[in-house]
Each structure stands twice: as structure tokens, then as C-alpha cells.
């Protein structure tokens, strides 16, 4: 009888997790994190991934390490993460006056790639590598298989490098002798990717299980068999391992680790574990899946209706001038700014600009909605020409009947069949209505802002909260001065002290001086721009002034971008001078000429954009910068970059070469109102002078992006938003 009850209990516990009611019994089923910051068991990795477009941050304290991790999932089969580890048994350097009590900081990247997707019978299988392109003190590679059976998620795997406690013979050595022995390269600046030694040396075996507890909000228990060789990890034996290390790390008393995870909701989870038989660890993880278009906060921003629409139509039908004026007024109420207009037979053409709606198609939909409510019935189509900096980016001709007919049921696919998109050239004389603009016109705003310095050697995070005055003065439709001045409110820069040791011109490594000297007041930018579209598909920009925090000068950019192409070619050339640390409009002696040939290509299926910049960088090194990024339906962009230039690893310094990653997060997904605002976040493991690029505002690729034919085709679902 007891046996039967046990079987019944076991069967109940083994109810498949992903079916119906179990979504409620085991909510927040997202995979959890290991103490190494990435998805996994406790110390061991797993073959689990978040959905693509997910960003996560993880903080773990596991003596002697305090680790902050930033994770990104550019694809459902790829996990990329940046690890920042404070190693508490080792000083930052042997120079007491420099280190003080500052402990060693280690930075590195981890990557995991799924080979097999989990199915009814097959587990998810992934390979991964820890601490690549870092100092390699946590370096390990692994292959892991994870299978969910009932509410047990089992993982088994093989580990190399630090994960090779068992010292089994490497099966890959049967294929090639190079895998038999793992070599260590001590002649390095760190930051190199050593492809030659991955999956080499002896092998360890690890295994574990994650058990989902029913009706406990997704809480789960973890048990694992640990293959970490703690004699290889970090600085295990104190001074015997490394001259700056002052205390040995507790070695393992047990190879079984235990853990518990408690998800507070889909975004936040807490975890605690008992590892090595002698160490308690705990941490917190935050995540957001921001790839899908669905907003986090529901939108409360419907199109503004035109009151007494029929009366307005009757009036606008009397004379075109009335129609133009009504369009100017009612479009403006929807944040669409009419620049020029013309009625030609049964078509109303409107050239407009807008900075509210995240996609051009959404603006087209809103404009069509307004125009349908104010135009007389003989107008059968609306031709909407999108202007940005007085350059025509696209022309969308909307069949009024098709737009209205499909509106109530949001049949945007049907409506799109009757909408024509094409490239456009703006010629003012083509328009009968050209409302007068009084220049110069000024726009300004006061807003809080944050400057962040993340992952530096002095600490994980330094930042200051500032009040920024952003201003734009339009001298004509295509000439504007953009500026940002800011005053500090609060910062924690006192502990920032790292001085540059670079042997290259200090084009970036004096960052601490710039941050500290502009604590109270700073001018980030005062850049005069002039845009032009001299011939179809060719765009130009001339700029002068204070171009960024560290450089001012003069220069320009030319871009060839065909309306229907998924590639673009551009050139830019800048004569710049380094700015003074403190005085906004004073310059230092260093000046240089920097410029690039830029090639952009967007792969249509994966939506990956490749940018290759070839030319001369700020520190007068020459070479290439490669930038890969992927855009998601929400507008989220996740990207990574690296540069190869003609300076040696020794000249570049720690890190060996420039590399990093960035996210552009659209605030539209968090806002009840539609907005084009983006939050940019970029991170380099180290700020070095090599491969530094001028950060001028409004690059032409970005300015022309909303009007591209492929982007318009992509956004049809926004038509009736």
C-alpha cells in the first residue's frame, strides 16, 4: 500500500511542466542561474537558455568571489555574458599606495551555444566556454545536456579546464593529439581568445537536478555533483598562487552542492546554496524578455479623434486652403508635423516630420486616421512623405478606402496590399501649401540623466546623477545646433582613481579626469549639423563644434543608401582636437584626423546588421572595427563589436584588443505612450586608447533608418496601433 502511495505521489510530481494547469502550479518556470552568473545548476552549467531578446543581470556572493554578470540572448540558441568578479583573497596590485584595500577585479566573457533543441525524447544539448577573452583564471569549457522529466530538470555534462576535477582522459584526444594536454600561456596581456586550448586537457563529469516545488510560486531545489577543480580556479593557494594573493581559498570538502531558488516574479529571483561542503552562497538575478513587441505596460495612447468630423469635412471641401490648415492643426494634435501639402485631383500629399512614433508605418497609420476624418470624400488617397532633417526618406501612398475598410478588425495585412511605398525626393516647389517657419527656433528640455562607469578596476559601478539641459536650435530645416549641458547632483566618483598607463595618445584612458572634472558642470556636446540629400539615395552631413565628451572639431559624413537595399556604404572624415578636462571650450594639445569607410549590411532572415568600419582611429592607429547587432520586434537591439588595428597587444595594454557589447532598449515597451526614446547601454571590459571611435551625434545610417523600404515592410502590424 505504501509503495502504491509512493508511486502515486511520484506520478503526481512528474506531471509534465508545460501543460495547462501546471503553468499555474509551477509559475515562473524560467531556468535559473548558477553561481558563475550564467544559466545553470549551482556551480555547474546547464543546457538551458532564456528566450531570445532577453537581458539579465545577476549578482552572486560566493566566497571569495563577488560576481556581477550581464547576460544577453541575441538568439534562442545563444547565451553571451560578461562577468565582473571581485576576488576577495587577492589585492588589486602589490603597490600598497595604489591598491589600498582594493581587491583584485577580474573581467571576462562567457558564451554558450545550443546544439540540440529539447524534444520529447531528446535533451537540450549545449556547449559553452567560461572566461574567454579575459585573464582565464576561471577558464573552462563544457558540454551539457538538460532534460525536463515531470518537474525534475536533469543535467549531465563533461567539463574541461577548471571543470575537470575527475582528470579523466579527454575523449577528444582520440581525434587529435592537441586535445591531450592543456597548455597555459603566461605571456599575455589578458583578453585574448585562445582557441588552441579549448576542450583540451583532462575531463571532469558533472550532473545535477533541479526540482520544481508545486504551488510555491516556481520555487525549486537544486542538487548537483560538482566537477570543479578548485585547485585551478582563481588564486587557490594564496601567495603560492599569485604574488598579490594573501589568503588561500577554502578547498572542497564535498563534491555535492545544494541550492534553492525562489522566483519573486518572472523578472526577479533569489537563490542560496551550500557548496563545497563548507561555503554558503547567495544572490539575486533580474531579467527582462524585451524582444517581443508586446509592451510591458499596456498602451493608453489612442489616436486623437477629430471632434465634429463631418462639419470639418464639409468646410475642408470648400477650399484646399482650408484642408491644408485643418491638416496642419489636427495632425499636430497627434504629434505629426505637416511641413508641406498639395492636393492633386483625388490625392492629398502631405510631407511631414515626427519624433514620437517608433515606426514610420505607425505614423502613417495615425496620419491616415486623422486625414480620413477631415478630408472631403473626393480625396481617395493620401501620399505621406516622411521628412527627417529636411531629407525625404520615404513616400507611402495609402488608399483611403482600403485603410478605412480594414481598420475595425486590424486587418493590416489586407490594407497593406493597397498601400504603396517608394523612395522620395523632397522638392519644395512640388507643394502648393508651404507654411512659413520662423527661424531660428529653439527647443529645450531639462531632464535627469546618469553617467555610468561599469566594471572598472576601482569598483563595479561608478556613476553620477545629473540634471541635463538639452537644447536644439534650428537655423533652418536642415541646419541645427544640438547641445547638452549638465550639472551634477550626486556621484560616487571619490573612489575613482585609476590613472592611465597607456603608451598610446590618451584619447580615452583619461576618462577618470573627464568624469571628476565635470562633476559639478559639463558640456557634453555643442554640435552644429547640416544635413542634405543632394541626389537620390545619397545623404550628407557636415558637423562642427564639441562633438563628444572628449573631442571637438569639424568633419562630415556621406552615405549611399538605396531605398530598397539591405546594405549601405558611407565615408566619414573628422579633424578633431582633444578637449580640456575641465573647461568646456578649451582644448588640449593633442589633435588628429580620423576617418572611416563604413559598410553596413543587414541579413534579412536573422535581422543581424553587420557594420565594418575601416580607417584611422582617434589614437592614430589604423584598422577595422566589426560590429554585429540584432534588432528584435520590439526595437531592442543587442550588439557586440571588436576591433583589429595595427598596434601590438603590448601597445594596446591589458585586454589585448578592443571589444565589447551594447544594448539599445526602446522605452516604448515600458511606456503607456508611444515613444521613439531609446536607452543605450554599452560596456567594454576595459577602457583603452586603441581602436577608439569618435562619438558624434546623429550618424546618417541612424537618421535614414526609419525611412528604409525594408523597415517599412517590417512594420505593417503598426498600421492600426
Amino acid at each position, binding site marked *: 500500500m505504501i509503495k502504491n502511495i509512493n508511486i502515486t505521489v511520484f506520478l503526481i510530481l512528474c506531471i509534465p511542466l508545460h501543460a495547462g494547469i501546471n503553468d499555474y502550479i509551477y509559475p515562473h518556470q524560467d531556468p535559473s542561474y548558477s553561481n558563475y552568473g550564467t544559466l545553470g545548476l549551482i556551480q555547474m552549467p546547464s543546457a538551458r537558455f532564456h528566450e531570445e531578446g532577453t537581458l539579465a543581470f545577476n549578482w552572486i556572493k560566493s566566497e571569495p568571489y563577488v560576481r556581477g554578470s550581464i547576460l544577453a540572448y541575441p538568439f534562442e540558441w545563444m547565451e553571451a555574458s560578461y562577468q565582473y568578479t571581485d576576488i576577495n583573497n587577492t589585492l588589486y596590485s602589490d603597490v600598497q599606495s595604489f591598491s589600498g584595500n582594493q581587491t583584485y577585479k577580474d573581467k571576462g566573457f562567457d558564451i554558450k551555444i545550443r546544439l540540440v533543441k529539447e524534444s520529447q525524447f531528446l535533451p537540450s544539448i549545449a556547449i559553452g566556454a567560461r572566461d574567454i577573452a579575459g585573464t582565464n583564471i576561471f577558464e573552462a569549457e563544457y558540454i551539457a545536456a538538460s532534460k525536463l522529466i515531470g518537474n525534475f530538470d536533469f543535467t549531465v555534462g563533461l567539463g574541461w579546464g577548471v571543470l575537470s576535477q575527475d582528470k579523466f582522459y579527454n575523449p577528444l584526444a582520440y581525434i587529435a593529439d592537441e586535445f591531450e594536454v592543456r597548455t597555459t600561456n603566461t605571456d599575455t596581456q589578458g583578453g585574448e581568445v585562445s582557441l588552441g586550448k579549448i576542450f583540451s586537457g583532462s575531463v571532469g563529469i558533472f550532473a545535477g537536478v533541479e526540482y520544481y516545488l508545486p504551488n510555491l510560486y516556481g520555487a525549486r531545489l537544486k542538487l548537483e555533483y560538482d566537477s570543479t577543480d578548485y585547485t585551478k580556479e582563481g588564486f587557490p593557494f594564496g601567495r603560492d598562487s599569485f604574488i598579490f594573493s594573501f589568503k588561500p581559498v577554502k578547498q572542497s570538502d564535498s563534491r555535492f552542492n545544494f541550492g534553492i531558488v525562489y522566483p519573486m516574479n518572472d523578472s526577479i529571483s533569489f537563490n542560496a546554496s551550500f557548496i563545497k561542503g563548507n561555503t554558503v552562497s547567495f544572490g539575486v538575478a533580474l531579467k527582462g524578455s524585451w524582444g517581443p513587441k508586446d509592451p510591458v505596460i*499596456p498602451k493608453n495612447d489612442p489616436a486623437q479623434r477629430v471632434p465634429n468630423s463631418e462639419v470639418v469635412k464639409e468646410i475642408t471641401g470648400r477650399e484646399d486652403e482650408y484642408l491644408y490648415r485643418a491638416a496642419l492643426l489636427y495632425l499636430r494634435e497627434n504629434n505629426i508635423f505637416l511641413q508641406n501639402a498639395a492636393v492633386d485631383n483625388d490625392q492629398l500629399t502631405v510631407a511631414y516630420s515626427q519624433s514620437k512614433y517608433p515606426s514610420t508605418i505607425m505614423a502613417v497609420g495615425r496620419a491616415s486616421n486623422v486625414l480620413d476624418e477631415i478630408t472631403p470624400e473626393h480625396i481617395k488617397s493620401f501620399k505621406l512623405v516622411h521628412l527627417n532633417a529636411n531629407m525625404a526618406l520615404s513616400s507611402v501612398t495609402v488608399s483611403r478606402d482600403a485603410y478605412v475598410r480594414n481598420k475595425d478588425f486590424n486587418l493590416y495585412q489586407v490594407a497593406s496590399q493597397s498601400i504603396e511605398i517608394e523612395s522620395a525626393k523632397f522638392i519644395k516647389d512640388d507643394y502648393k501649401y508651404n507654411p512659413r517657419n520662423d527661424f531660428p527656433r529653439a527647443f529645450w528640455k531639462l531632464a535627469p540623466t546618469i553617467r555610468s562607469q561599469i566594471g572598472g578596476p576601482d569598483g563595479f559601478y561608478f556613476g553620477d546623477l545629473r540634471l541635463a539641459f*538639452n537644447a536644439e536650435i534650428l537655423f533652418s530645416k536642415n541646419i541645427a545646433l544640438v547641445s547638452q549641458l549638465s550639472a551634477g547632483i550626486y556621484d560616487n566618483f571619490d573612489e575613482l582613481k585609476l590613472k592611465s598607463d597607456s603608451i598610446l595618445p590618451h584619447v580615452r584612458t583619461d576618462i577618470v579626469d573627464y568624469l571628476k572634472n565635470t562633476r559639478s558642470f559639463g558640456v557634453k556636446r555643442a554640435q552644429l549639423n547640416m544635413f542634405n540629400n543632394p541626389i537620390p539615395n545619397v545623404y550628407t552631413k557636415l558637423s562642427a563644434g564639441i562633438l563628444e565628451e572628449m573631442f571637438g572639431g569639424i568633419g562630415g559624413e556621406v552615405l549611399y543608401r538605396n531605398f530598397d537595399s539591405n546594405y549601405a556604404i558611407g565615408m566619414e572624415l573628422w579633424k578633431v582636437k582633444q578637449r580640456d578636462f575641465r573647461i568646456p571650450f578649451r582644448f588640449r594639445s593633442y589633435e588628429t584626423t580620423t576617418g572611416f569607410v563604413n559598410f553596413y549590411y543587414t541579413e534579412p532572415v536573422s535581422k543581424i546588421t553587420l557594420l565594418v568600419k575601416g580607417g584611422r582611429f582617434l589614437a592614430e592607429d589604423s584598422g577595422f572595427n566589426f560590429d554585429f547587432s540584432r534588432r528584435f520586434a520590439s526595437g531592442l537591439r543587442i550588439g557586440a563589436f571588436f576591433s583589429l588595428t595595427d598596434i601590438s597587444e603590448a601597445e594596446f595594454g591589458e585586454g589585448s584588443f578592443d571589444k565589447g557589447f551594447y544594448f539599445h532598449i526602446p522605452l516604448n515597451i*515600458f*511606456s503607456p505612450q508611444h*515613444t521613439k526614446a531609446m536607452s543605450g547601454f554599452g560596456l567594454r571590459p576595459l577602457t583603452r586608447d586603441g581602436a577608439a571611435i569618435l562619438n558624434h551625434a546623429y550618424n546618417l545610417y541612424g537618421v535614414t533608418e526609419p525611412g528604409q523600404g525594408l523597415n517599412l515592410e517590417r512594420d505593417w502590424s503598426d498600421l492600426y496601433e
Partner: protein
Amino acid sequence: MNRYIILALFLQSCAVIQPSEAPKILKTLILGADKIDVSKSFYDEMEYSFANVRIGRLASAILVLSSVDNDLYTWLGPNKERIITQDGKVLYTSGLQHNINYLEFTSIDNYEYKSSYMLELLDPSAIIEVELEYLISKSKVIENFYSPVLDWRGENLYFINESGKTYKSIQYYHPMAPKITIDFYFK
């Protein structure tokens, strides 16, 4: 907590936020969505009966009464939200982030203080049994609910005016959704 992440992103990005948008976004993040204030003039302007619906902190909308059929009131929202109520209790929703459908129900008048109902949960889909227990006074009905399989329990409130009509309800309608507060305005 999620709110603070968003707030940090917001601060990080202020250089590109339009001035007119910033206060609205900040206000929503910190204080939640604007409460729709139903003033006398607002009430007078509305042609039909309506409900002021607030889900959690971040969503609120006016839903207009579109039909009444056997004490079942159907309310329609501006973004194709649809809610059916009976005596103020939400029996069916569509167009919300999480939706429900009561498969069996009775009206509050017929309650014998304890009942159990089958409730279809949508997004994700499941069917559960819900036990309901009522405490009824002249001005208020307290509905204690419990789902054994989900170990989901809570208390719903229905406020009744002198003519016996529910004018306000505060309910947990879906285990993954925040509470829903509805003020009913009948014409």
C-alpha cells in the same frame, strides 16, 4: 523592482526622450497609470452606462456597456477589451493580458453562501475548480475564493448601493493578474 529597472533605463536615456513624454513615463512608472477621474461632467457627457476599470497599477480604461442579457452585462473597451459581469462579478474577459471564462456560475442572489465553480483560465489555458464562500451584508458582499489545485486564495469585495445594485467591485480574477477594480456607472 521591475519598475526601478525601467526607471534606471529611463534615466540612462534621457537625452533622447521628448520633453512632453518624460513626465508621463516617469509618472506611470512611479505612481502607476493615471486614475480616470469620473467627474460629474464626465458622467453627464457619457451617453451610455460605463465602467471605470483598473487592473493593478499600470492599466486603466473606461469600458462602455454594450448589452444586457439575463443579468449579464457586456462591457467593451477602446482596445477591444471585453468584460462580462453579473452582479459586479467578472465572469468572462477577453482582450486583457490574462483572461478568464466562468464555465458554470449563478447570480449572487442565489448563493447559498458556499459554492464551487469551474473556471477556465486563459493565457495560459487551464480549467480549475474554485470554491467560493460568501459573507453578505446590506452594503457589501465578501467573497472568499480558494482553488485547491493552485493553492490560490483571496477575498473579493462587492459594494452594493441602496437599490441592491453593485456599484464597485474589487476582485482577483486571474491568478497571474493583479486585482481588478471596477466602478460601475449606470444610466
